[in-house]
């Protein structure tokens, strides 16, 4: 079992999806075990694939281009003119992604057994989880941009289905719609980008495109435009400014789904994509700058919004958006390694946080922080793991988040510029602040909704187990960058080398820098503690202190309203105009008018038929005379 069989990963889950989706009513426990078993099998095979990958790695002479490990010709027109290969591609990025996806997915699936217990459409839930994971795995192993797109849309579909899982709630239905349409707009760009790449390179194969780009096959402007289009897809999927609006709403879905899809895996597809295409981005620095600033704006903006959000999941969502912004900043600076590293660690602690918040929601059936509080007594495990996750997010040494965020900050100063670094560092402080706020309001202080508090209890073990596992990962995941750990994991040069294959560089650990980062995180935590410790009402004060700013943040910079206005006024307005055009001009004037004019002519002409013999004779006479006159004239 090796890299050639990597295609099995999604295939198994896809099979599970089909079986469970169609027959869940007939399966014991609605088939959740089937999906989890499939997931386990995937992990096993995934492990074997990585092992196989390591053998290449061990050869000293690393062969990341194991060539397209497996290829199946899906479409072939004109003998190679237009070919779509179902080819797989395994390299270091793939390995990271497979690891993240399979671990988080398994955790979420296990967790869901408890969380979703008793839900109607329980089987359907698992089926879609399987579908999602299959699509996500396809996305990361694909060696062909179109297949990537294929999977890209597949995860979007699964996301849509899961956000709208509680479709009886109008808000969920709306959120699902919003998520789908918003990401779809990004996908338009993605598809255009893919086709533009094909147009010049003549292939959809990623490696061939990269090769083509590196040889300078594309024109400069052309490639810039193309890569910006491609990046649109990433912006949509990874909820970057200005298409970030869907992700907070996506929290309408079940919380485990948020953990899996909207924190750990699907939303990082954009990061993955840019990382995957980085050699091409390298050819056009303008495009990379766009990536950088998009990430920067998003990171800062989302963090500020996270400060005031009241919904526990939304805070996490804004945090996700913000952290994704960090990753894009890294990518924009050309540092795939930093981005992927952050992606890796973020997946674990953010999944942990989401699952933890799910545990809270499960217990209290409330998710607004105003109504929570003091839960640490009722839910000690949840609280503990949640705090670990929060610290990781805030970037406290030596938790996972610290290492990766530090790497990004480091890169931003080294590769970027001071302003970029300042903004990012400020954002990191903000991150620490809202994280602290979240933790304090949820687990500390007095319970503000006693009804919810009284019914609260620790979640069952099936839910806490994944929390514990993930919290461990949130602690240790960052250590993989150290060479000994990497070697212990079977990567001879450590994971750093794995990620920095092209031009091996070391993990930039800089003591002073790290100290600064830690201090700034602690500073943020301090602010949070000082402000919210035991005093939830401070939120009210914040509102009165700067009402406009507060309103701006609570209303998410009015971007949702702006979009709504655009849709209502511009799009629907245009639709109304065109509908009117269709009705009046095309139908009533064009078609009915044509028919009526025939009828009108008939109506007029029929009165020639007066019924009087002399008139009839006159017609004949006129006919004869006219014909004769014309005849005479022409001859």
């Amino acid at each position, binding site marked *: 079992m090796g890299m050639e069989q990597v295609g099995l990963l999604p295939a198994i889950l896809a099979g599970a999806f089909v079986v469970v989706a169609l027959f869940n009513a007939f399966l014991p426990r609605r088939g959740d075990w089937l999906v989890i078993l499939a997931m386990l099998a995937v992990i096993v095979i995934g492990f074997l694939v990585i092992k196989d990958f390591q053998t290449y790695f061990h050869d000293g002479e690393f062969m990341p281009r194991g060539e397209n490990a497996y290829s199946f010709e899906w479409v072939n027109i004109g003998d190679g003119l237009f070919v779509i290969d179902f080819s797989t591609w395994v390299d270091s990025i793939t390995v990271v992604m497979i690891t993240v996806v399979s671990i988080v997915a398994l955790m979420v699936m296990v967790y869901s057994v408890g969380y979703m217990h008793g839900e109607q459409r329980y089987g359907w839930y698992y089926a879609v989880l399987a579908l999602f994971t299959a699509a996500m795995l396809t996305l990361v192993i694909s060696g062909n941009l179109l297949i990537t797109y294929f999977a890209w849309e597949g995860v979007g579909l699964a996301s849509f289905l899961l956000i709208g899982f509680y479709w009886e709630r109008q808000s969920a239905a709306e959120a699902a719609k919003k998520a789908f349409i918003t990401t779809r707009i990004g996908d338009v760009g993605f*598809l*255009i980008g893919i086709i533009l790449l094909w147009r010049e390179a003549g292939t959809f194969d990623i490696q061939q495109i990269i090769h083509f780009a590196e040889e300078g096959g594309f024109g400069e402007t052309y490639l810039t435009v193309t890569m910006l289009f491609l990046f649109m897809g990433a912006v949509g999927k990874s909820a970057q400014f200005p298409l970030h609006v869907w992700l907070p709403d996506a929290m309408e879905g079940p919380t485990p789904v948020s953990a899996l899809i909207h924190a750990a895996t699907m939303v990082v597809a954009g990061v993955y994509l840019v990382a995957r295409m980085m050699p091409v981005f390298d050819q056009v620095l303008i495009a990379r700058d766009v990536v950088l600033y998009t990430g920067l704006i998003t990171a800062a903006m989302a963090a500020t919004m996270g400060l005031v959000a009241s919904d526990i999941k939304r805070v996490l969502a804004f945090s996700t958006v913000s952290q994704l912004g960090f990753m894009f900043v890294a990518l924009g600076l050309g540092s795939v390694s930093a981005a992927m590293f952050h992606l890796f660690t973020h997946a674990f602690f953010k999944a942990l946080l989401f699952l933890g918040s799910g545990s809270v929601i499960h217990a209290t059936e409330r998710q607004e922080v105003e109504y929570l509080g003091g839960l640490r007594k009722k839910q000690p495990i949840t609280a503990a793991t949640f705090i670990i996750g929060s610290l990781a997010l805030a970037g406290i040494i030596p938790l996972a988040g610290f290492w990766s965020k530090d790497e990004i900050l480091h890169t931003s100063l080294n590769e970027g510029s001071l302003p970029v670094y300042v903004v990012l560092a400020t954002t990191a402080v903000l991150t620490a602040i809202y994280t602290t706020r979240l933790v304090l309001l949820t687990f500390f202080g007095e319970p503000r909704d006693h009804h919810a508090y009284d019914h609260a209890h620790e979640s069952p073990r099936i839910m806490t187990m994944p929390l514990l596992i993930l919290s461990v990962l949130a602690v240790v995941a960052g250590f993989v960058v150290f060479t000994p750990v990497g070697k212990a994991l079977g990567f001879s040069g450590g994971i750093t080398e794995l990620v920095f294959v092209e031009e091996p560089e070391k993990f930039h650990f800089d003591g002073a820098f790290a100290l600064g980062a830690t201090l700034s995180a602690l500073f943020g935590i301090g602010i949070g503690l000082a402000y919210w410790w035991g005093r939830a009402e401070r939120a009210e004060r914040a509102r009165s202190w700067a009402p406009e700013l507060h309103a701006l943040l609570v209303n998410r910079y009015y971007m949702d309203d702006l979009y709504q206005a655009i849709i209502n006024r511009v799009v629907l307005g245009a639709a109304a105009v065109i509908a009117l055009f269709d009705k009046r001009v095309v139908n009533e004037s064009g078609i009915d008018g044509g028919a009526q004019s025939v009828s009108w002519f008939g109506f007029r002409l029929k009165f020639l038929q007066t019924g009087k013999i002399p008139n009839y004779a006159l017609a004949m006479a006129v006919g004869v005379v006219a014909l004769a006159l014309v005849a005479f004239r022409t001859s």
Partner: protein
Amino acid sequence: MSSNDGYLLLALFLIPLGTAVLLMFVPSRERGAIIALTGAASFVLFVLSVYLFSRFDYEGAQFQGVKAWTWMENIGFLGEKGIQLKVGLDGIAAPMVLLTGIITMAGTWVSWKIQHRTKDFFILLYVLVAGVYGTFVMLDLFFFFLLYETAVLPMYLLIAVWGSTRKEYGAMKLMMMLVAASILIFTGIFAIFSEAGLASFDLTRLFGAHYDPTMQKIFFPMIAIGCGTLGGMFPFHAWSPDGHAAAPTAVSMLHAGVLMKLGAFGIIRLGFQILPEGAAFWAPGLITVGITAALYGAISALRQTDLKLMSGFSSVSHMGYVFMGLGTLNVVGMSGAVLQMFAHGVMTALFFLLIGGLYDQSHNRDIPNFSGMAKQMPIWSIFFIIGGMASLGLPGLSGFVAELHIFVGTFRAYPIVGGLAVLTAAITATYLLRMFSQAFFGEMNPRWSGLKEITWTERAGATVLVLSILALGLWPSPWVDRISTTLAHTIPGVSL
């Protein structure tokens, strides 16, 4: 494909014709007999269609299974092989035959619940089917057009008698517009025949004949508009929303599913294959019309509240892709057009089937009136969502494969238009998801608590259609190979 398969091609339209004739002699009270007869006929047709599609040798670009029977020869202006009953299949017609088989079967199944003059309905329906099949396999211009018109002929009664809402208006509009469009085809055919000077209507010979370039430039748009009207080409699409809104379920299915494809097929056969220079000259026009229609239909659909009207405009939009694909003049884009013909056929048939399943119970199709239908009719909703996803071009479903080819082909020729086309797909997503979120999700409207899930025949029909959507979406090569080989080798002036 051996030439003996020509007999099967002949059977393709003789069977429905025979069924129609047989039905005339079945007493209208014998519903069982009617159902048995139509069921058997549709199944046989389906099997035949699948068989022929699979037997088609995709390596060969030429017409396969060619058989000819002399009909008129050396009479009047007709010379050697003047008019023949000549059948044959190429890679463009093969998927169309398959499409017809699928939709005929599904359409027959869902029509069994018609109570009012069932027999007459099926007679007309099978005449229509005969016309459609015949047009696809016919290699004689005279019979091509005869059967083309045959497919249009029963529409008036089918809509006016068995339709709903503004059925008389819709029926009359549809019929008159389509027949009016035939004027242009008629004229074009006359001109082609005269210009070719072969004294023969044999299409394969007409393909090779010499036509004056000016003449081609004059008559290609006539053919394109004439056939395009049946294909819902903007701005001659006006019959489509109204006609579909009024038509009974199976008729909408067949009409939007197959008949509109007949229009595009006509453009390929008569326009591209006979008048290639005209086609080359007018290709930008086709592209313009196509992208306009795609955008126009999609934006109009945003505003529609009637489900069928929305599907109607959606069809206009999707058929716009077809014309766009044809206008690219390259194999990828044109293959996309043909794929889209198939894909749109199946998915629009699914739409109409499902809308019919709802309307028969609720007598209402207004989207704002519905809410939370997924609760009341989950199976129906799932089918609908699959159809919708196919329509908005979700990978893995048929629509994506087709649209991808069209986009790629268009980008090759006209990148900006291609961009607009991809954008249209996003608009499609918008109106479909608006509809889903409004009608399917949310609180269930108690007014509809009496609605039942769609019947078993409808489920069966929908399943067949969904399977077709998935088949093309997941494994397109059987289609693509047949189509692209034929396009690359049989149409002069088409680049790779």
